[in-house]
């Protein structure tokens, strides 16, 4: 059975304090690793797709990386507007692009 585990569950940072979120996965044949941002009461918003170990993607203060067992979401010099829950999801071989989600990391960035 596919599994995705995210850590930490919650993270509190001061503005400008860089850190990383972890996503460990066990998937029978990884096709893609996805990162999403979710604000309270909203649906997840797509951020990145990573396809192979060693790949990196960047968007503003966020950078996602992938190894054969983990993915990291690095947040550089965060701002309060980066506060959200960050979800990762793994897609295995199979039909319909089904995803297995982790439970997320709840990030709070304070002034």
């Amino acid at each position, binding site marked *: 059975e596919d599994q995705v585990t995210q850590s930490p569950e919650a993270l509190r940072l001061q503005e400008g304090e860089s850190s990383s979120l972890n996503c460990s996965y066990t998937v029978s044949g990884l096709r*893609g690793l996805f990162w999403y941002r979710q604000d309270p009461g909203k649906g*997840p918003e797509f951020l990145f*797709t990573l396809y192979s170990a060693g790949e990196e993607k960047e968007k503003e203060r966020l950078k996602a990386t992938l190894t054969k067992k983990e993915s990291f979401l690095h947040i550089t010099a965060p701002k309060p507007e980066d506060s959200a829950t960050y979800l990762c999801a793994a897609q295995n071989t199979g039909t319909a*692009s*089904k995803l297995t989600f982790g439970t997320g990391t709840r990030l709070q960035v304070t002034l």
Partner: protein
Amino acid sequence: SQTIHQWPATLVQPVGSPLSLECTVEGTSNPNLYWYRQAAGRGLQLLFYSVGIGQISSEVPQNLSASRPQDRQFILSSKKLLLSDSGFYLCAWSQGRGAFQPQHFGDGTRLSIL
């Protein structure tokens, strides 16, 4: 550009009442469509997915059903709601052709069963 609409945003229903949640996608054709439930402290649980009109796959046994009467319309239903059906329901779509496509989510329906 593609957009996805879900309604209603919030819903309060008594136990034993029926349910119908609707989701529509605009700006694309033949999408894959998905229904998820998100419970506090748990990941998104896939309930149903559809790769075409009338084609529904169920991921977990439950009190709910899904239908896809049109290419870009996905409906989640129940004949009699249970207390355990409370939760945050999310609809999503992805490109139907080609793998590795991300799913894009609507803003969800918060369902409370009394």
